[in-house]
């Protein structure tokens, strides 16, 4: 693609990411709440389904912005939660914390979001 056109596309995608990021963080918060209920032994069907949906959406969307590692992490969470409403606590917490870290990196700069999680 010609550099000028490529820049135009990158710029447009960056705007989409900036408007999408708050929703991504809300989905992350849903995962964190589920991990907390797992830890406290209070998880239920509703919190599990909400978390599974959040992981599914994150795995499907983050990769479009070039956040491939974060997308892969969300995909692992989705697979873990897909096995049932009481996934392994340690694995769930670890993956959710990892996702938090990867998304936090995207806060550092508003430029070229596609390259932030490499």
């Amino acid at each position, binding site marked *: *693609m*010609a*550099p000028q*056109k*490529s*820049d*135009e*596309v*990158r710029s*447009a*995608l960056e705007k*989409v990411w900036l*408007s*999408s990021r708050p*929703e*991504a963080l809300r989905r992350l918060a849903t995962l964190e709440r589920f991990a907390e209920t797992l830890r406290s032994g209070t998880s239920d069907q509703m919190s599990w389904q909400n978390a599974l949906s959040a992981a*599914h*959406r994150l*795995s*499907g*969307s*983050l*990769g*479009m*912005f*070039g956040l*491939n590692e974060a*997308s892969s992490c969300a*995909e692992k969470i*989705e*697979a873990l939660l*897909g096995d049932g409403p009481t996934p392994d606590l340690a694995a769930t917490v670890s993956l959710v914390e990892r996702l938090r870290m990867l998304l936090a990196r995207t806060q550092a700069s508003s430029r*070229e979001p*596609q*390259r932030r*999680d*490499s």
Partner: protein
Amino acid sequence: MPKTVLVIDDDRDIREVAKTSLELVGGFMVILADSGKSGVDLAQQARPDAIILDLMMPDLDGQQTLVQLKQLPETASIPVIMLTAKVQASKKELVSKGAAGVLVKPFDPMQLSDQVCEILGWTLTGKDVGHDGSPKE
């Protein structure tokens, strides 16, 4: 006259990235729907050249939407490309229900138009050249 593509997905991120990608990279005209029902209604009104349809949606899901689109005379001949996550239904099953092909999420915005054209046998005319501007790291 650019071809029109209807994107049906309940996820705003997917809709917006697909629109940006298909318009800027592919030169298509893009219309959007956020549910299976509104997608069927819009397809009947606008008669797009192709439809990209998410598989997993609340209420009327992608497979149910596909069946409706294929049953309605106004939309039956419009090619439908299903959009699925890696772990979801098989391509074979979706094609057997009338889908023209399957795209996997997350897709690369720089490649989406090419993938659509490849599935539909279209020639891409709306973009400049190749893909060395890919956003991948």
